């Protein structure tokens, strides 16, 4: 269906090719997962399939890409629209119309399909993706999972043979991600659509893949093969594979189900041991407190009667569906958003009374789009401005950055940093004023495993140094790695608040892979298991 024949691609103003000598043959009806580190060229590979690269982005492409027999060199994206459907990373940015039904029909209108065919296909697509109840809704009013399903439906209605998706579940909560993946499964199984998808959250998608394309980056050759084979050596792997590598299981399990079957001996080995947890003081000094807090946007309540206490040195994770009130809670703690009803305290003061340096010195928030906070034209300049804002000694921010991300150069424009590097830069800017309370909103969106591991280490060190940390996230693996406590929000209410092991193992939706494999014991991460195994070996 898709043939890459010795394809190399070099973007303008770049010396080294982003893709070099790629040879791929993707047969019809396969679900292919594209795996690689951030910035390795995954998106480039995806966008080359329908000709957006290089027709839209510029660059020099050598070799040939054939999709259903059509050469992308002679067919621009619009002439491939009936064969390839592309779902971009942020569906909202690609919607052309304003209601669900119109959006589903838009692609078919462009292709010039007759009205009766369009009518029938829109109805089919609404049923296939479970969108019938929201067919008349405005796109802006949809939740993240609904938007993603509409975006998939919008390209699917035109009956393309190939569906290309760029990080379809990264911004979704675990429940919504499962909905989207179930819909994709149905397409592959029932309609024989060829699906090519890139995704950082391998733990969610790896089990569904028929083939894996590994893009190592830096122009190294692209590898293509069966998932078990590729995962044996891949530099990025989900916890289930990490655990299998640690325990030496053969053949390599890719799903929790397979891993459970292989895990019997490991479970026996770990009997009588408990995961080593970070020690937190019994009654730490309060850094943030909410009492019976209600926040409304217009008449819609975003938080209802929420009470929460966060102490010095604690790491608290906020979880829950998209729109459950996580961001509202964080914003309220920095005094942003509508005037709340109830009591908010940050180090004993109302954050709304704080501004400027006073605010920076008591609380810092890394927002969902870290780039919003950046304004200078170079990293060095950004650090200088940050020192001035925070009123600290010159060089403080730069020194922090050198500690966390030593590879970042002074002269580089913040826009040219990778997503993960940008996040660390913003984190350093926030930390320059040494706020005792640190808040992060969705810090791991678009981060690969190595970057995530680095962030986890940084955050754990900060907590050990006494910072109180609250993070809102959908990433159960990150939560398992660093959080002491988990708070689950639903429709603006706090529905669960307890230690991480207690809360996440109580619900399959929020449980990390390791805990599912080793249930009923409360191991959460591969690292915990590794430490325990080392100790067993040392003792025996």
């Amino acid at each position, binding site marked *: 269906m898709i043939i890459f024949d010795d394809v190399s691609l070099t973007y303008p103003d770049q010396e080294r090719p982003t893709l070099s000598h790629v040879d791929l043959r993707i047969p019809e009806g396969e679900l292919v997962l594209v795996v690689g580190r951030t910035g390795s060229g995954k998106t480039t590979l995806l966008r080359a399939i329908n000709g957006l690269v290089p027709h839209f982005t510029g660059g020099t492409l050598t070799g040939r890409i054939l999709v259903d027999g059509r050469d992308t060199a002679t067919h621009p994206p619009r002439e491939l629209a009936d064969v390839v459907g592309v779902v971009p990373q942020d569906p909202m940015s690609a919607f052309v119309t304003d209601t669900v039904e119109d959006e589903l029909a838009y692609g078919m209108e462009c*292709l010039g399909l007759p009205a009766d065919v369009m009518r029938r296909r829109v109805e089919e697509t609404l049923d296939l993706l479970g969108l019938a109840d929201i067919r008349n809704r405005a796109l802006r009013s949809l939740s993240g999972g609904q938007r993603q399903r509409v975006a998939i439906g919008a390209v699917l209605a035109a009956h393309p043979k190939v569906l290309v998706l760029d990080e379809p579940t990264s911004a979704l909560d675990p429940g919504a991600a499962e909905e989207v993946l179930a819909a994709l499964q149905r397409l592959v199984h029932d309609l024989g659509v060829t699906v090519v998808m890139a995704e950082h959250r391998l733990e969610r998608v790896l089990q569904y893949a028929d083939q894996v394309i590994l893009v190592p980056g830096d122009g190294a050759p692209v590898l293509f093969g069966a998932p078990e084979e590729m995962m044996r050596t891949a530099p990025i792997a989900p916890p289930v594979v990490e655990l299998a590598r640690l325990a030496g299981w053969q053949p390599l399990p890719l799903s929790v189900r397979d891993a459970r079957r292989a895990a019997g001996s490991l479970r026996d080995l770990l009997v009588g041991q408990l995961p080593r947890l970070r020690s937190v003081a019994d009654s730490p000094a309060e850094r943030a407190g909410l009492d019976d807090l209600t926040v409304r946007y217009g008449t819609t309540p975003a938080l209802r009667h929420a009470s929460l206490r966060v102490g010095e040195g604690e790491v608290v994770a906020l979880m829950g569906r998209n729109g459950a009130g996580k961001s509202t809670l964080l914003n309220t703690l920095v005094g942003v958003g509508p005037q709340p009803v109830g009591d908010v305290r940050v180090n004993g003061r109302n954050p709304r009374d704080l501004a400027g340096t006073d605010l920076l010195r008591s609380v810092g928030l890394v927002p969902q789009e870290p780039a*919003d906070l950046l304004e200078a034209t170079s990293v060095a300049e950004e650090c200088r401005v940050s020192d001035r804002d925070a009123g600290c000694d010159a060089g403080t921010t730069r020194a922090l950055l050198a500690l966390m991300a030593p590879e970042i150069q002074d002269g580089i424009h913040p826009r040219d940093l990778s997503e993960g590097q940008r996040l660390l830069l913003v984190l350093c800017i926030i930390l320059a004023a040494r706020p005792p309370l640190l808040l992060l909103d969705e810090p791991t969106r678009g981060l690969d495993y190595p970057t995530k591991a680095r962030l986890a280490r940084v955050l754990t060190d900060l907590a050990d140094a006494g910072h109180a940390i609250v993070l809102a996230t959908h990433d159960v693996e990150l939560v398992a790695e660093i959080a002491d406590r988990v708070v689950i929000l639903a429709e603006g209410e706090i529905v669960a608040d307890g230690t991480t092991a207690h809360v996440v193992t109580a619900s399959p939706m929020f449980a990390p892979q390791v805990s599912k494999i080793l249930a009923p014991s409360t191991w959460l991460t591969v690292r915990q298991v590794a430490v325990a195994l080392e100790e067993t070996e040392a003792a025996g």
Partner: protein
Amino acid sequence: MRDPRWLHPGAWWVWALGMAAAASRTTNPLLLLLLIGSAALVVHARRPEEPWGRSFSFFLRLGVLVIVVRVAVQVLFGAAVGTTTLLDLPGLQLPVWLAGVRLGGDVTLESLLMALFDGLRLATILICIGAANSLASPTRLLKSVPAALYELGVSVVVALTFTPQLVSDVERLRNARRLRGRRTTGIRAIAGSAIPVLEGALERSVTLAAAMDSRGYGRRGTQPPAQRRAAAALLLGGLVAACIGIYGLVSTGSPALLGLPLLVLGTVATVGALALAGRSRVRTRYRPDPWRGPEWLVSAAGIVTAALFSAGAYLDVPGMMTAFDPPAWPQLPWIALVAIGVSTIPAWAAPPLPPSASRVEPVHVPEAVAA
């Protein structure tokens, strides 16, 4: 029971423009107020619970503002009419070359009434336009534009969806400034966030363009280039002819041939060019709004209203124009009353709205987890 559906937006606009044309034919305040009442009745009966549906009250307020401004201008600058002086403002003698303009001076009852009626007429016209605005979905109206103007329609839709995103961008960046300890109000704060907001908008438009391209926007048509050029020339020529025709009709003293014949010719050429250009499009339409009985009824109501008012004005039926010098209580001419009765027909003739559209959807709807 009729099936709920959207009325063709074109029908709403014909009705509303008919109402506006009727309003322009009278200065009788009672008739104007009745017209506003009729518009409000129809809007109340068939307004959708969508963002644009709430614009009617905005137009009502705008109407009040128009009346106030019109009266204020009359009081301050207008020449006095009549003799019933209510108030004597200190006047200012202006130089000779500003003859006709007056500052201050006597305020008479007659001139006040004249301004009031005049302002009310303008306000009524605006409110009728507002009624169409809140009854007809702007995007559905764009779907009905001729295929040749399709690109224009798309750019308007894109602009309509970009504006709310721009507003939320500004809000987000304002919050970001607070997080870095900056001021969030004042000129510098606005200037500081202007560039990131524009950058964001630019990035989004590139993303959108890529998405539209990959979904088949602008696929090649089958029309030969010669035919395409002919259509363009015909369109341009037709528009120029129509413009000259209108000029000939409006201006006195131009030859008769320049007026109506040229306008008709120009219109025909324009319509022909649009049809020719539209034929080449690959594009088809999903569920175009049908034009059936209710559409005919609604648009006929507007046209009949305008025709009856025009006839009344043409025949000088007493009461169409209200005397203000000397002031007299306005009469209610029967022909206008019939017309206003006709103008309320859409409140019943238009089909009821689809149920999902007349319900307010909260923005943060949590997704039901599929069982």
